[in-house]
């Protein structure tokens, strides 16, 4: 009965736990574990989600690419199965607007007291189980339809990685300045 209840090494589990503690602390402190903040972003009334995510991507990309180039730190690029990325993204977006959280922020929301997020998380476990049952069909018909492999924008264009990182910095700065003072509501507690 419990043959699949197996544990990785204590060191790996401890590192995961510490990472999660920081992750959850930051998401809650930023206000993105709130239904009204997520829906506020989709309804274009509050831009906290864009500010948090874009800053994370820009800061993250500078450090990760620098470490990759200087010290050969491995990347973890996922396959560009574009039809699956797109269809899965659309289904995900519909679900996120309905629930008001993504998987990570739903768990954070449960941590800070949201009760309806518990039902969202139960739905997520169910969704994972449903996908496991139909995965062979999707693998054959959707994932296999377009698979460019583990490619980045630098790979497909032949341009230097730092062109894109610099582009992200410029786009983020422009977006932040355009959205400044445009919130109709606050992400306050």
């Amino acid at each position: 009965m419990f043959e699949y209840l197996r544990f990785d090494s204590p060191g790996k589990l401890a590192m995961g736990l510490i990472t999660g503690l920081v992750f959850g602390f930051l998401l809650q402190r930023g206000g993105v574990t709130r239904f009204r903040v997520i829906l506020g972003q989709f309804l274009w009334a509050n831009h906290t989600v864009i500010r948090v995510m874009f800053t994370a991507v820009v800061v993250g990309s500078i450090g990760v690419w620098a470490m990759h180039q200087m010290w050969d730190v491995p990347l973890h690029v996922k396959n560009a199965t574009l039809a699956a990325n797109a269809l899965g993204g659309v289904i995900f977006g519909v679900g996120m607007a309905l629930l008001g959280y993504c998987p990570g922020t739903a768990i954070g929301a449960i941590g800070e007291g949201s009760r309806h997020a518990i039902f969202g998380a139960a739905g997520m476990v169910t969704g994972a189980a449903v996908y496991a049952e139909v995965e062979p069909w999707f693998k054959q018909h959707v994932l296999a339809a377009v698979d460019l492999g583990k490619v980045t924008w630098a790979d497909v264009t032949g341009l230097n990685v730092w062109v894109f990182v610099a582009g992200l910095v410029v786009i983020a700065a422009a977006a932040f300045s355009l959205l400044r003072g445009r919130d109709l509501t606050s992400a306050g507690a």
Partner: protein
Amino acid sequence: MPGFLRQARWSPYVVGAGLGVLSWITFGLMDKALGTSTSFVNLAGLIESFFAPQHVEQNAYLAKHMVDKPAINWQMMLVIGLGLGALISAKLGRSGIKEHVPDLWAWRFGPSRAVRYFGAFAGGVAILFGARLAGGCTSGHGISGSLQLAVGSWTFFACFFGAGIATALALYGKAGRRHV
């Protein structure tokens, strides 16, 4: 305790930068990328294995995640830590919220908890189905994949964001902006 730990909210730029630096640490020191949705497959597989272990073995997708791999792994602990981290932040900042039915939802669909719980459950099903089809969620694709400039991750990002806006407008309309 330093005062900033007791602030209810931090600037979204500080939070975003913190997440970016956290990614440096997971890539550089742990050889991992932030992600959460795979753990829901492991959790589903684990629950199924309590009742029907042979099904986990026979289902190719579950077997890929569960056979000869520990279900309780780095990412599963990350997901558990995420809930605890949010709890600690809410306690320190006194910013927790015991929410059953959000105001926006109640304005549009009424105050019934049962209706809201059903909506939340249905949304959750779609989210994880979509995430597994796409190969990641807002963490694995949205943050980790985007910062690596991955083509598939940016495709996911654009599609989920567009679908989220369209769905939110279909559900609540522009008038919903007064209720968030």
